[in-house]
Structure formats: structure tokens, C-alpha cells
């Protein structure tokens, strides 16, 4: 399925979609969105790229196996839950927040890091499954 139009478009779409996925991830706390959808959109971006340019090119672009995102994301989510236990003797998963919201991002707290963890895991899982299946099909 290597059409010129799709290939050219996908080169521009990949960064755009990735930025969009981060946008969706960040706005999740106030408006529809969040780590899960964001992760799926990012995964779609890569899958689209793979569709147009071939799997090997996308893999070259990624440089590492997407599966590595799973432990990274899980670790990030777990640590964001563990942080209050270690830092403040609060129960697991207590929300911690910076007092002032950051420009552009909004209020930053442990929940955001948790959501980033979800985002990474979803990308990792989706790409691992799709890459694996399409390689063996």
C-alpha cells in the first residue's frame, strides 16, 4: 500500500498527530481526553506511518522496540502512586499537586504523571501487538 500521496502525507501527519496526542493527554484533566485516548492516537500515528512507509522504516524511526514503553509507563504510573507513601507517609495513590498551575499545561500533580504512564503503556501495548501481528501475518 505504498501510494505516494499517503507516504508524503504520513511524513507530515506523524509529528502532527503526535503533538495532537500530547495535547489530548494534557487536556484530559479538564476536558475530554486523557492518557488512554492520547496513547491510542499516538499509536495510530505510528501505525499510519507504518502503513505508508513499511514497518521497517517506522521501526527505524522509533530506534527501540515499542515494548520498552510498557515497563517505562508502568514504572512511571507506579512511582507516581508510590511518591506520597515515600515522601509524606500518605496512603498509596494520594494526589499530590504543585500549588500553582503551570502555563500551557495547567495544574501539575501526581495524577498527570500517572496519566503519562498510562499514555506510554497504551502506545507500547498497541504498537507491540500490531507490529508483532503484522510481522508474523
Amino acid at each position, binding site marked *: 500500500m505504498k501510494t505516494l500521496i499517503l507516504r508524503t502525507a504520513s511524513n507530515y501527519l506523524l509529528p502532527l498527530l503526535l503533538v495532537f496526542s500530547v495535547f*489530548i493527554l494534557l487536556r*484530559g*484533566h*479538564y*476536558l*475530554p*481526553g*486523557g*492518557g*488512554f*485516548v492520547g496513547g*491510542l*492516537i499516538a*499509536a*495510530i500515528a505510528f*501505525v499510519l506511518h507504518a*502503513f505508508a512507509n513499511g514497518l521497517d522504516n517506522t521501526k527505524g524511526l522509533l530506534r527501540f522496540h515499542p*515494548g520498552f514503553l*510498557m*515497563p517505562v*509507563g*508502568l514504572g512511571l*504510573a*507506579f512511582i507516581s*502512586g508510590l511518591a506520597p*507513601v515515600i515522601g509524606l*507517609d*500518605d*496512603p*498509596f*495513590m494520594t*494526589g499530590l*499537586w504543585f500549588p500553582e498551575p503551570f502555563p500551557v499545561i495547567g*495544574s501539575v*500533580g501526581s*495524577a498527570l504523571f*500517572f*496519566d503519562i*504512564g*498510562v499514555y506510554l*503503556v*497504551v502506545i*507500547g*501495548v*498497541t504498537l*507491540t*501487538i*500490531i507490529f*508483532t*501481528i*503484522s*510481522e*508474523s*501475518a
Partner: protein
Amino acid sequence: MLAAILLGFLFAIFLVFAGKFFRGKLAVLSALIPGGLFAYFASFIPQISSGEIISKTYQWVPAFGVDLSFKLDGLSLLFSLMITGIGFLVFAYTASYLRGHKYLDRFYGYLSLFMAAMLGLVLSDNLISLFVFWELTSISSFFLIGFNNTNPASRKSALTALGITGFGGFFLLAGALLLGSITGTYSISEMLSMKEAIAGSEYYILAVIFIFVAAFTKSAQFPFHFWLPGAMKAPTPVSTYLHSATMVKAGIYLLMRFTPVLGDQEFWNITLIIVGGITMVYSAIHALFRTDLKGVLAYSTISALGILVFLIGLGTKAAFLAAAVFIIVHALYKATLFLVTGIIDHQTGTRDVTKLGGLRKIMMPVAIAGILAAISSAGIPPSVGFLGKELTYEASMHAETFTIIIVIAIVLTKILLLWAGFVAGIKPFVGKLPDAHKDVKAPGFLMWAPAIILAVLGILFGIFPMLIESALVKPVVSSLGADASDYHLALWHGFNTVLLLSAITIAVGIFLYFFLKPSAKLESRIGKLEFISPKSITEKGTHYFSVFSAFWTNVFQNGYLRNYVTTIVLFLVVLVGYVMFGNPTVLIDYRQLSEVTAYELAVVIILIAGVFYTVFTKSRLAAVAAMGVVGLAICLIFVFYSAPDLAMTQFSIDTLTVILFVLVLYRLPKYLTLSDYKMRIRDGVLSVALGTVICLLALQVLAEPTNSEIGDFYAKNAYIMAQGKNVVNVILVDFRGTDTLMEIAVLSISAIGVFGLLKLRLKSTDRSQ
């Protein structure tokens, strides 16, 4: 205190990254960790012996009463010192024993993982966290037993040990939950004050049985004992550390910890006396029939654990004293004997006691350690073993019932244990050196020094019992709920019956040692009885169980996705249909349904068209695309009913699903009709039935009075408590964040599953192995 426990875990994780630096000469440095912890715990001795109890609580899941709360009292202190002290020596010994091993770093990782888990276990004051650490010790023991993972026997033993101790772990969890529901708390210290309420509860017996099964499996009591001799497949440092000095005593620890809560009841005492009694005699007799040094030691360890269970069962102050002393005695002499055996094995390459002799000429320090340990194990004065034996006899002579039988059993056990100790500690060193071992080299300092230290301590504590009396022994007894402040440990108590029994034990034991030599003939004789041993019976049981599960799996997990879906759908239809039509008040309130708008109608028509196209099309790709249409139509319905989050997610999922299908289907051969008409009609009927049932269910849910309490709570508190305005997302990442954490873990597991199934296929050459 949390840091002290976590240190081992952190070191294990650290080794994953920095392991290669610890494979060589630096390996011995890792002994600094248990060494430092030993010093840390030893610094608490003055406080604990003056009767203080140190506790520290970290909240974990406060909503369920699950905390990481740690309590250091006499009992915990004794175990902590044993874990870190023997750990220190074993870590150092390992550096020499496994020098140059390819996976030395991995071994240290497992060892420190175990050490941390074991410390957590003996320091936990919360039953649930105790359970977690309990399981961690089983798991690390599994890794360590199976360390020589190229050897099938090792792997099998590791699996057996994990199976048995894991089985007990379930019972511990059940017991914890039961006790939690009786008392309303998981804190062990709080349970102490509810002794009467627990004993009066109708679930008392059940709770005790659960705790017993957990303790008996872990501490290798009859009939669960057989995993321990198998566990001797592990490298000797592991046998020393886990399977004689510490982990197998976790069950003893559990029983002791619960003595003030559950003890002092007839059921508790009599069961422990019987099980402990059978175990100690049974396995002491078994030890006679072994020629492998580690086999002899394994059975004598089980027997010693039996003695401890038996003493806890006696439940008197004297028995608790005896148990506290005997734990120290046994840890010192048995660890020494294991270390000595390890040295012999390492230098000569054999552990067959019939082939060993005269090794004193080559390794004098080891011989001294072995002989001193044998003396302590035999209970010959002035060793600390003598103290332990005297106290044990004293306690058994004051048993309330069946005193004669109990005394005979314990004396018999001690005689046989004396024999076992002599065979392991003295026999390899005396007599003539066989020609085959003429060129054996002497072991290095790191190997014999730990053995000597432990053996000398065994004698030192005997001569100066005040060293351990108020520091270790009495605090343990007071943790068990008895007061022993008026008692003094001493070697000499005058001429009395106990002394006479001791003399008989030593005389008969030494006679037996000269009369009965271990031989292969004896070993084969006991082998004939193997078919009625608990081990063979359990193995048969597990064999039939696996045959049954293979049958069950073949019926239900037959590998055809369509059969799985059929089963699930059929089950759902029958169950939900039965409940709905069995209940006569099926009410559907049509008045509450809102008007159907034109665009909703349009979407539904598209949806139905999509479904029909999917079912009847001849092209696979077209079916997939039509499925995508169905999914998108549903997304639109979500949008109409103000669920944008759901719509976005569904949209992305649908896109990915279609892409996935296309990627796979692209390479499949042309569409084939594999199902006949009957199957198609059956599937059609089933699908329509499911749709109808779900539709009716949804309609009925609408008719129920709605309870919006939970929804209101989230809506109200999302911004106040979690600073977010998108309630759905706040629930996902904050209110129910732990659920999400589990869900993404499950996602990762499924991805690894897909990867494993498709990528890690065995080559046909590997498959035969």
C-alpha cells in the same frame, strides 16, 4: 525500619543493572549489606531486653486496614538477628563457594531479595503485609532452589517447593482474612487484646487450621515435609540460609507470633504436639537411611522443626524457654554443618558419607568447626546444645498428658539427631583418608571462617549463657506471653532426672554412631517404602490433577475462537435470560423513553445496514470495513448522549482494529466458506438471542429507580479533591487510579502474551528438550 527492609530489595534491583561488577572480586562486598543490617538490629538489643517494643507504621491501603506496620519485639529481634547474622556469613561464604560462577550476581540478587522478604515477614505487624512478605520468601526460595536451572531435577524440586509453600500461602491469606473479619483489624498487636473474642468465635477452629496449614507447609511438618529434602538441590549456601536457619523457621515464627493470640486452647496445643511429635520422630528415623550428607541434614532439620512445633504445642513457660534456646542452638549448629558439608562437597566433589573420611588431615579448621557443631547438636556439655536439650527434657517431663510417651519420643529423637550430627560433623574427618581424596586442596579462608565463627559461638553461648539470656531468650518468651524473669540459664542444675535422661541420650547416641554406619544398603531398604510416602501420594495426586485439567482444557480451551465466543454467549444468554424471565415483574416503562430524533434514526439505519453487510458480504476486507462502520455509528450515538470521552476512545479503538484486521487479512488466502448452513443458523439464533437479552436488560435497568449517589460524589469532588474538571478522567487517574494501574498491567501482560506466542516460537530442534 522500612529502609532496613527495603535495602535488600534495592540491592537486588541494583544488581540487575550493575551485576557485572559483582561477579568478580567485589562479590564479597555484598556481605556488607547483611553485616550492616546485623549491626543495626543488634543496636536495639538493650532497648528490647528492657521490655520496650519499637513500632513504626506506614499507611498503605488504609481503607482496608492494610498497613506496612512493623514491630520489633523480642521474637522479631531474635529472627532479625538470625537472618542478618547468618546472612552475613552466608554472603561471604558464597563469594568463595561460587567464585567465578557465570550468574553469581544473580545469585546475590535472589539472596538479598530473600533476606529483605524474610526481614519484612518477621517485622510485619499487619497480617496482610506479613502474607505478602511470606509469599516473597516462597518465590525467592523457588529461584534459589532452581538456581542450577539446566538440571531438570533442580527445576522439579523448585516447583515442588513452590507448590507446597504456595499452597500454604493461600491458607495464610484465608486465615488472615478470617481473623480480620472476626476482630475487625489486621494488626497483630490489636488482636492480642482480643484473645477471648477470637477463642469464643465459631470460626476459631477454622482460623487455627488455616494458620496451621500455612505454618506446617512452610516449616516442612509431616505430611508436607517432603519438599525440604528436594530443596537440597540448591547450592549449599542456600540450604544453609533458607532451608535450615531462616525460611523454614518462618512457620515456627508464625506459630510463635500467634501463640498469645490463638494459643492456650486444647485444639491448638494437642494438634501441635501430635504433628510436631510425629514429624520429629518420623524424620529423625528417616535420617538414618541417608548416605548423602545433605539428605541427613535435611531430615535432621525437619526433625528439629518438629521439636520446635512440639515445644510450642506444650505451651508452658519452660517449653517456650526451650523453644527460644533451641532456635538459637539449631541455627548455630545446623548452619555450621551445612557450611561444612558445602566445603566438603566443593573440595572433594562428593557428599556421599560412605566415601568420605580422614579429611582432618587436609582441612583442620573445617574439621574443628564440624566437630564443635556435632557436639552442640548432640547436646554434650558445655555447648549451648546441652542447655537446649536440658530445657526440652524439662519441658516435656511436665507435659500434662501422656507424659511417658512424650518423653520417650523426645529422647528417641534426640538420640537419632545426635547420630545425624556426628555423621555430618565428625565422620568425614576421622579415620583413614581415602586414596581418591589424597590431592584435595584446602578451602580458602572465606569458606571455613564462617563455619568456625558459628561453631565457636555454639560453645561460647553454652559456657556463658548470660550472653543470650536477657538479650535474646527472655524477650522471646515475653513476646509469647509468658514471664520468664525468674529463670536463669545455666549448664549445671544438679543431679536430677533431666540429667539422667541427658546421660542416656549421649551414651546411647554415641553407641549407635559406632554401631550403625550409613550405607547404601540401608538407603535402598527405605526406598522400597517410597510408594506410600506422602511425596509419592502427592505426586500421584498432582499427576491425576494435571490429566484432568488437560481433559478440561481440551474441552473448553480448544483453540477455536468461535467456540469460545459461542460458549460465552450461550452462558450469558441462559443466565441472564433465566434471571429475567424467572422474575415475573419484568417492567419496562415506555413512558420514560425519550423521543427518537431524525439523526438518531439515520445513525441506527446505517448501523443496521453495516451489520447486515458484515454478515452477508463475501469479501473479508469488506466485512472488516463494515465492522468499522458499525463502530463509528456507535461512536456517534455516544456523542449524541454526551459521552465524548467514550466516543473518542471508541473511535481510536475502531480505527486501530480495522487497521489491524487489514494488516492481517491482507495476506490471508481467499475467503472460504467453512461453515455449513446449520452452523450459520445456530450462530445467528444465538446472536439474536444475545442482542434481545441485552436490549431487554438495558430497558429494565432504565425502569429501576436510579441511585446517583456515587455519580454525585464524583461530580462534586472531582475538582475539590482532585483538581480536575473532567470527571471521567479524574475517576480513571485519581479516584480509581489503582484499578487503572492494574488494567494497564493487564494490557502489558496481554501484549507480552501476543509477542511471546508469535515471536518466541521454539525451533523444532529445541522442542524435543
